[in-house]
């Protein structure tokens, strides 16, 4: 079966310290999972330091696994030539954690939209300014913004929610098939958080985008994702359909995790 993304027995060992007296840290240990051709949202949750970001980095090709193989569309994710890299980035795009950090405060935000448009055109030709603007605008419309609202603005002139949406719009311009979002909503308030999560759902349905959604927030994971992976100390402790797993977690850690979630309903304090 062809999968969009597949990880088979992926292990990542980080070296800390010098060349010989190194301390080895197994950030990810023998992790395998697949994303099918069908668009889906896969949530990865777990304690901090459990290797979630490392998985994201490997999917994005920023770092190579120590063992095991990652394949995207049947091809190994490995960085070789610039052209290969570019082709890969056209298909897989990241959404970063902190919208305020993701834009250079000294530069206008539209710059990233235009750059992306110019560097990843579909026709192979470098689009001119007007085409680039059209592509940017189209992407912004998907996230509920317009180019007009964004053009010429500096990051500090936009709200966090707007910025995060611009960042997502930018990632949509190459018309990728996979978004990798590492804690994309941890820095925004409760209502914005919902706006972005809802947006993910819409993108999946309307554009057929698959999304790897890494989060601490079990509630949004439950709310939006199709499948879920629960990690601890580099290993997957539980996986399955998001709702099935969270409604009835099996692994003790999953249960502890679920129990620790502070429900946003009023229950008289103990």
């Amino acid at each position, binding site marked *: 079966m062809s999968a969009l993304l597949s990880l088979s027995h992926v292990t990542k060992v980080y070296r800390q310290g010098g060349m010989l007296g190194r301390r080895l840290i197994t950030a990810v240990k023998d992790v395998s999972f697949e994303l099918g051709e069908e668009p889906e949202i896969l949530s990865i949750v777990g304690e901090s330091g459990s290797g979630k970001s490392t998985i994201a980095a490997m999917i994005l090709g*920023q770092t190579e696994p120590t063992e095991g193989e990652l394949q995207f569309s049947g091809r190994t994710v490995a960085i070789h030539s610039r052209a290969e890299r570019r082709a890969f980035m056209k298909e897989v795009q*990241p959404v970063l954690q*902190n919208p305020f950090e*993701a*834009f250079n405060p000294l*530069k206008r935000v539209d710059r*990233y939209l235009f750059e992306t448009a110019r560097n990843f055109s579909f026709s192979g030709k470098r689009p001119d300014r007007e085409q680039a603007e059209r592509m940017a605008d189209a992407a912004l419309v998907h996230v509920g913004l317009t180019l007009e609202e964004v053009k010429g603005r500096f990051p500090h002139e936009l709200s966090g929610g707007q910025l995060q949406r611009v960042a997502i719009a*930018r990632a949509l311009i190459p018309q990728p098939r996979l978004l990798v979002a590492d804690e994309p909503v941890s820095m925004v308030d409760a209502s914005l958080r919902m706006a972005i999560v809802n947006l993910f759902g819409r993108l999946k349905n309307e554009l057929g985008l698959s999304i790897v959604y890494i989060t601490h927030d079990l509630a949004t994971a439950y709310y939006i994702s199709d499948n879920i992976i629960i990690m601890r100390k580099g290993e997957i402790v539980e996986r399955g359909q998001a709702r099935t797993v969270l409604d009835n977690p099996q692994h003790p850690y999953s249960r502890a995790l679920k129990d620790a979630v502070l429900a946003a309903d009023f229950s008289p304090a103990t």
Partner: protein
Amino acid sequence: MFTIVRDLARQNMEFLCGLLLFAVIVGLIVVSYFSPYGATDIYLLPPDMPPDGEYWLGTTSRGQDVFWQLTTALRNTLFFGIGVAFISRIISLVVGLVAGYAGGAVDRVLMAINDSVMVIPQFPLLILFYFVLKDSMTWTALIVIMASLGWSYDARLIRSVAISLKTRSFTTQSVYSGMSMRKILVEEHLPYVLPIVFATTMNNMIWSIGMEITLSVLGFTDIETPTMGMMIYWANAHSALISGIWWWVAAPVAVIVVLFLALFLLSMSMNEYNDPRSRLNRMGS
């Protein structure tokens, strides 16, 4: 732009003083082009005249008007300092940004070169260059040589910032926007290191101008081009300090001090303006 300058001048004493002092320097440079005397001509005027109505800053023992000498010397020295600073900034930026961003082997190679340049003693090297190049040791050549000696420390500084910029998420964002390394360095990282660049520029100018003066005092530079160093050289060759011709020495020293105070005050207030945190601090005052 105008309102920024106006507000800076109104609110910021340092900026105002710096601006005024800088205006004096610019004024001197502008009038240097209208000098009634050839810059290298000597014995045109009665020597050793103290400052008075006719010769504002007196005359030298070589029969030159100190004021007009000074304007040309200032111009040449400043262009020299700026030239050195400009070229060495470019080198240190390229090395620092590339080493910091690329990391790995590139970083190690660049830093080995960088450190090697840093450890080589500059002074004997400069003198050797004089001996080797002789007549071809023009001002341009000196600028290039000084520039190629004066970048390494700052390159290290820039590299340390570049390393942290590399881990900022906007860099990742740029990479995934398909920007090339050159573009990321020039358009994303460069603006961040500019404040450091400005700050080091002044040190670099003090260093290069001081070096020029030292070389002049030791008799190594082109004696026909009037510079601050040359003025001091000639004053020294005529025992000006001990003979009571103090104005010959005091005038260039005063101008150098004014120049750097102006640069310092301006850079200080500009940095404050540039850094939103300190800018806002001042607003409330």
